[in-house]
């Protein structure tokens, strides 16, 4: 696909939106430079919700720092604590019991389901299709209840701890049975939703060919996660993560890089997550949940990358006397901001927020870095 070229260089006016706008769930400011309601250029500014979590983590005992990472994001809280524990475990060479790895995968995939459902619901809301939005939220509710069942909480589960998972997250037979039954319910509901969604010609006319991000630009902009895969690039870090070695799943891709591809991408990935969870339920090994057999030593900076619902999540820090040093966290939305800006070009102003939303922004957790563009 060719590079998108703005229709003209004439900037008739600038429409600033945000930092508070009902179509944007999070605080960011976007300036649209438009000509006759067609976006010629877009500029996203973040930074109004900087909390300095890495700075707070500096000097904290690693266990406390791990718990703190969960507060970075309300949607992928489990991913942060998982990756933070993983960083320390890699640095300290801790072996994780197989049962704990399976529970981490189940939690990770449940989180992916609820994140993708939130994405679909929010996408429908930005399309102003409240009925579809509500129906997806009902599906998401099942996942949220499952997360609460395992972690004891709907948002912050505190599942991963150094060496495994918290004993509270043990999955007994009753919990596994409920998980299994609810996966059937979710699959049925999602199939029904996807069929209705794709059969709705009005919705299809709103999302087909809108917010196109060509594959070449996606790679150049270092886009990550489902937004990259929606352009046809089969890159999913789960294929290289040791936690997923036992699982058989497909890396979903879509060809067009538009809003439709992105929405379908999440729906199809959700089916794969259901598939992974079913495999985990069937094959979960017996054994202990936490490995306490390790010693705290000083480590160099250790880096850990995992695939979270929005893309690649990066955590790195060193350990000194059991305390965290030189902590850096990079969330996937940081890499996707360029894609959001690019996707808006050439589309109607009414579609602009949709073009941003299609990249699944999570700016509150991205607010930890300053990007400087030199012109």
């Amino acid at each position, binding site marked *: 696909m060719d590079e998108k070229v703005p229709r003209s260089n004439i900037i008739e006016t600038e429409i600033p939106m945000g930092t508070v*706008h009902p179509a944007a769930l999070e605080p960011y400011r976007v300036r649209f430079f438009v000509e006759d309601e067609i976006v010629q250029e877009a500029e996203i*500014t973040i930074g109004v919700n900087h909390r300095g979590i890495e700075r707070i983590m500096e000097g904290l005992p690693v266990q406390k720092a791990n718990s703190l990472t969960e507060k970075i994001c309300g949607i992928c809280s489990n991913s942060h604590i998982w990756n933070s524990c993983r960083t320390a475990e890699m640095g300290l060479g801790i072996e994780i019991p197989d049962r704990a790895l399976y529970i981490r995968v189940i939690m990770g995939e449940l989180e992916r389901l609820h994140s993708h459902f939130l994405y679909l619901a929010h996408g429908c809301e930005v399309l*102003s*299709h409240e009925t579809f939005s509500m129906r997806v939220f009902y599906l998401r509710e099942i996942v949220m209840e499952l997360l609460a069942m395992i972690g004891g909480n709907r948002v912050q589960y505190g599942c991963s701890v150094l060496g495994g998972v918290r004993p509270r997250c043990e999955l007994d037979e009753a919990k596994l049975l409920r998980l299994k039954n609810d996966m059937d319910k979710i699959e049925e509901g999602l199939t029904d939703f996807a069929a209705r969604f794709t059969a709705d010609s009005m919705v299809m006319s*709103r999302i087909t060919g809108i917010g196109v991000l060509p594959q070449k630009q996606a790679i150049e902009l270092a886009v990550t996660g489902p937004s990259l895969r929606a352009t046809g690039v089969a890159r999913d870090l789960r294929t290289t993560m040791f936690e997923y070695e036992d699982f058989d799943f497909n890396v979903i891709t879509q060809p067009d890089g538009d809003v439709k591809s992105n929405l379908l991408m999440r729906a199809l990935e959700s089916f794969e997550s259901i598939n992974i969870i079913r495999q985990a339920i069937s094959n979960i090994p017996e054994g202990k949940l936490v490995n306490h057999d390790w010693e705290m030593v000083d480590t160099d900076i250790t880096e850990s990358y995992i695939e979270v619902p929005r893309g690649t999540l990066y955590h790195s820090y060193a350990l000194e006397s059991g305390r965290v040093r030189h902590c850096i966290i990079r969330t996937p939305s940081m890499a996707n901001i360029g894609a959001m800006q690019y996707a808006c070009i050439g589309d109607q102003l009414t579609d602009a927020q949709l073009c941003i939303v299609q990249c699944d922004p999570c700016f509150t957790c991205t607010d930890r870095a300053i990007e400087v563009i030199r012109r």
Partner: protein
Amino acid sequence: MFSNTLINSVLAVVLTVIVCFIISTLLPGIERKYIHARIQQRIGPLVIAPGIMAPLKFMFKENVKVESPVPGLYKILPILCFIVVLCILVALTPQAYAIPALASLVAIVGFLKVEEICYVLMGALSKSVMSLRMPFPDLAKGGAHLNAQRSFIEDISAKRSLRMITYGSFPLYLALFAPVTAARSIFLQDIVLYQQAHGPFLFTVAGGIAAIVFFIGYMIILNEYPFSIIKAKSDVIEGPYMEYASKYRAIVYLTRGFFMFVLGCVFSVLFIGIPPNIFSLGILVNIAVALIFVFMMGIFSAFSPVFTNRQLLPTILGATLLGILAVVIGLL
């Protein structure tokens, strides 16, 4: 004798307006509680919440300073809209037929146009904090276009309202004039009398087509999904209404419900031949028609995304062609 008749007529009009207004306050609640909420499988608000409780609540809220270059005019506009809707209802009552200049389609169209122009003015005069600019050039990200002229999002609403006046309301006006082709008169009295003699225009081929077109026009003029580009949440948010607070917002809410009812009455008069009159059982038909329209609009909007210009133009073009067809069939 004359004075008695006049007093009776005025009394009838006043009572009709009061009853219609009271019923109209329930319509937004019915739409949200019994249609949107049922379709979306949620409880929804109380029936009286959107149309009665919300305006009452806003009536007693403290007003805020309106961010507008002409705040006086901006604040008058919702009151003007309400008066316009009131005038349309008065024009529809049989007592008004004694004033042909008022009880004619030209007057109705004129009132509707005023109502539409109010949206343009509201959009142009609202300068909300939602698009407030920085008091200095924005260099935060390298500032691609530092000297670009900046607009408020309500300005977009004003431009879209203007577009809707030029082509968006074609379907409604074509549908309004379709009964004229049968009655061969623009006066409401003649249209009603024609239908009392020949049966409702709705049950003719031209009437059936025009009714569909009227419904599309009804949704467009009420800015309901999927035609709500003037106040689309995805970009312009509340658009022209952004700066209204307190009693002005209450009037906006009341006007919307009232307008829904009055447009139902317009349909009753033009397509069924039954004007709103408190002393006639025909008012039940007016209420039923208003409810049917609300139900249909609720169902349609619950299953539609908001249209952009890409979808809106073909839809309006199609509806306009249908309207022309109805007029042509009516003339044959």
